[in-house]
């Protein structure tokens, strides 16, 4: 059963009319004003830059997203790989690559969209297989991941421009309708445009016009080989690097003006450098925050097509911006990694069934570990070629009980139901969401994002007619009453704080479990000691301090806090802890809890006592696995998923649930 068959859904949404109206882009006609952006390299290809089956399967899904324009991910244009910024990035430096690109352009055209190929020379972030990267000037890296710089010579500039033009020619030969170059976040073009990295004294450095010379020559060369095929350039509306000598916002717009003068056919406005000290797309940036940059670009260049989508995940907001004339095309990618059906659902008035991007940046965290990108919300991403991840009709429909309505249990229930199984979910608590619902309320970044996960599961359960029995504890007695009613039990009962890791509390009521505090079952006193500086302890400590004005101290046994936090979000927690002035004691050993506080031995071996009205247990968790043994002789199949197997995080919980649901 498909969620698109949901009878509760409304029809086409009139508020999105502008987004879905056909538009003209030069000689090309698009069916709507949505451009699939090249936001991420998949890292699905071969190390030599050739395509894989995995990439083709993924591209077929992208082609089917319903976007009017689809930008294929950036390909590096040089045979040496100085422009290669990602471990498994695809290459377009040789004619032998053309058949692979032909296939991709074919998928996009078959789906009725305009095909754009991005040419990506990673510049400062390039040379991944080499011992260096190319830049206009020697400005060392600020992130250890990247390669030491070499200054590009004038001769190399000419060669690089020719390589871009050749790459554009290949893309058109492969059937693409347009090409795109990118001056985003420290790639080669950005390093020429920015004062931060361009300190040249020749005609390619100095004034904005000189720094923009490389861009203008690039545009001219590509347009020369492309004829009337359009060229897109991605340009920063703000680098977020100005305090360290990068371009001011005004200079960014001067560069846009320059690009327009050289006849680019679309400017895609972006925000931020990789190494900027400020967020641009994370969960802590509110949706719509950067819209003003697009509006400024459109005001400055009314005759140039402007595309925009940074931290603008909602089609309703995008339609409103287009209506107001702030930009012409909504450029979106990450939200469609989370839900490739986003456009179709929006068009059909089923936004409540959209699996929203929650900005966890799992995708990027993995890319910088040289791994293929995946998505917290979308377990199928990157596995489109893999039969084990296909939702196929069940060979023999079964009656399945899912115990626990957290993300893992609900994902499993939804997947199994879509395959035709009969599913009932049993939840001990009063509502869907499990521990996530409690912690989401305490999230300082954007609790709405995490709460949307819970909303999605609730809506999907309703849409798919999955019975969820809340306030129902499943124990042996309850199971005996339902004996032989189910074929399969899925244990998705989550995890709990491992009390054995802590000394016994000698003062009744002093020690509380993190989840009890998160869900509001107990209230913290004025002085709080949080035992555990992982994501649970940090989330609660930050919320207690900022939202409830409590005096909070964290005690952590490991050397550092945030050990289990997503790499791309770790810095956010550590910065909050500093900003909020929450004292942390790392490398500590808890000695006693009671007598009005916590006694511990610090990293230097000194005993300390922290007075507290509430002590929060947020140490490592252990899985709730009791039911595995109890159900073994009561039901045909018993499976587990999520934290009930190994306590980890939201991504693993969702992916476990999906995989199990897809194979039962």
């Amino acid at each position, binding site marked *: 059963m498909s969620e698109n068959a949901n009878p509760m859904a409304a029809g086409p949404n009139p508020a999105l009319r502008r987004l879905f109206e056909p538009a003209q882009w030069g000689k090309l006609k698009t069916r709507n004003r949505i451009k699939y952006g090249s936001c991420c390299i998949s890292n699905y290809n071969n190390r030599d830059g050739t395509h894989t089956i995995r990439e083709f399967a993924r591209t077929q899904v992208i082609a089917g997203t319903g976007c009017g324009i689809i930008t294929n991910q950036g390909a590096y244009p040089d045979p040496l790989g100085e422009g290669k910024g990602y471990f498994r990035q695809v290459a377009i430096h040789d004619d032998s690559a053309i058949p692979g690109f032909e296939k991709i352009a074919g998928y996009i055209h078959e789906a009725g969209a305009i095909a754009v190929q991005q040419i990506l020379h990673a510049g400062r972030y390039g040379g991944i297989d080499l011992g260096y990267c190319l830049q206009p000037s020697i400005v060392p890296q600020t992130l250890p991941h990247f390669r030491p710089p070499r200054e590009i010579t004038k001769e190399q500039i000419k060669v690089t421009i020719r390589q871009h033009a050749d790459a554009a020619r290949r893309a058109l030969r492969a059937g693409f309708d347009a090409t795109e170059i990118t001056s985003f976040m420290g790639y080669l073009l950005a390093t020429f445009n920015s004062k931060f990295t361009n300190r040249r004294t020749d005609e390619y450095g100095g004034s904005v016009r000189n720094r923009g010379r490389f861009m203008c020559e690039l545009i001219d060369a590509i347009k020369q080989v492309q004829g009337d095929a359009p060229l897109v350039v991605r340009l920063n509306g703000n680098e977020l690097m100005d305090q*360290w000598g990068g371009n001011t916002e005004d200079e960014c717009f001067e560069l846009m003006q320059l690009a327009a003068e050289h006849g680019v056919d679309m400017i895609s406005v972006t925000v931020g450098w990789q190494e900027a000290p400020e967020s641009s797309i994370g969960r802590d940036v509110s949706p719509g925050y950067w819209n003003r940059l697009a509006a400024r670009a459109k005001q400055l260049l009314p005759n140039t097509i402007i595309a925009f989508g940074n931290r603008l995940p909602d089609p309703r907001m995008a339609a409103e911006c287009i209506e107001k004339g702030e930009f012409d095309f909504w450029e979106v990618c990450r939200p469609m990694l989370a839900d490739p059906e986003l456009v179709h659902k929006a068009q059909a008035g089923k936004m409540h069934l959209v699996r929203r991007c929650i900005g966890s940046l799992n995708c990027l965290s993995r890319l910088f570990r040289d791994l293929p990108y995946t998505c917290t919300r979308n377990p199928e991403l990157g596995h489109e070629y893999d039969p084990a991840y296909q939702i196929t009709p069940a060979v023999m429909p079964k009656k399945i009980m899912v115990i626990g309505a957290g993300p893992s249990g609900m994902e499993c229930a939804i997947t199994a139901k879509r395959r035709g199984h009969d599913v009932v979910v049993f939840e001990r608590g009063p509502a869907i969401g499990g521990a996530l619902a409690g912690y989401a309320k305490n999230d300082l970044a954007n609790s709405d994002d995490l709460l949307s996960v819970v909303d999605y599961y609730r809506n999907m359960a309703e849409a798919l007619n999955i019975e969820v029995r809340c306030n129902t504890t499943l124990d042996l007695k309850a199971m005996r009453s339902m004996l032989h009613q189910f074929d399969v039990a899925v244990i998705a009962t989550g995890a709990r704080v491992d009390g054995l890791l802590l000394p016994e509390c000698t003062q009744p009521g002093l020690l509380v479990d993190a989840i009890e505090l998160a869900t509001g079952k107990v209230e913290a006193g004025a002085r709080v000691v949080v035992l555990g500086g992982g994501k649970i302890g940090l989330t609660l400590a930050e919320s207690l301090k900022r939202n409830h004005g409590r005096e909070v101290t964290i005690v952590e046994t490991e*050397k550092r806090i945030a050990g289990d936090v997503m790499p791309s979000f770790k810095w956010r927690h550590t910065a909050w802890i*500093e900003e909020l002035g929450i004292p942390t004691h790392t490398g500590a050993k808890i000695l006693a809890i009671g007598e009005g506080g916590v006694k511990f031995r610090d990293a230097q071996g000194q005993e300390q006592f922290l007075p507290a009205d509430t002590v929060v247990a947020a140490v490592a968790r252990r899985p709730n696995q009791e039911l595995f043994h109890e159900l073994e002789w009561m039901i045909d199949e018993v499976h587990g998923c999520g934290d009930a197997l190994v306590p980890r995080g939201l991504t693993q919980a969702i992916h476990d649930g999906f995989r199990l649901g897809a194979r039962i």
Partner: protein
Amino acid sequence: MASALAPASEALATPAVLVAQDAAAWDDLPGWRALLQRHESLFAPWVEGGAIGLVERAVADAGAGRMLVWVRMGGATQVQWRDYRGFADCGVAVLFVAQPGALAAVHARLHDNALGQMKLQLRQGGMLLYVLVAKAQLLDEGFEDFLESLGLAFMGACR
């Protein structure tokens, strides 16, 4: 820009006072030495001669001036001044560039949470770090723990 001058108590200080606080921070070699000793476990893995440098923004922009250096010598971490003549061959693995007031903000927490404040300065843009050797060399020479303690994952940080 996010303030490089973190302590709120200093918000009302006059420019002259801020300059004086900055100068005092840069010149307090014994204070820095004591800090490094307290955090010995972070520096013990550095190879003999392993060093990081700190310069004022104006010095970095000029490409010349003096550089405060934390260097591992004889089993301890020493603090010393060296000449700075630009990125090339400045003899340190990592160079911290401090906006006016940033080092004073770190220095103000010398006996409390100076490295935490340094981390905050990096995040707020009060300090910028340049990596002057390859990642493999940073790992080989024992800088990983120190840099991780400043919140610098050995990876990109697209956010």
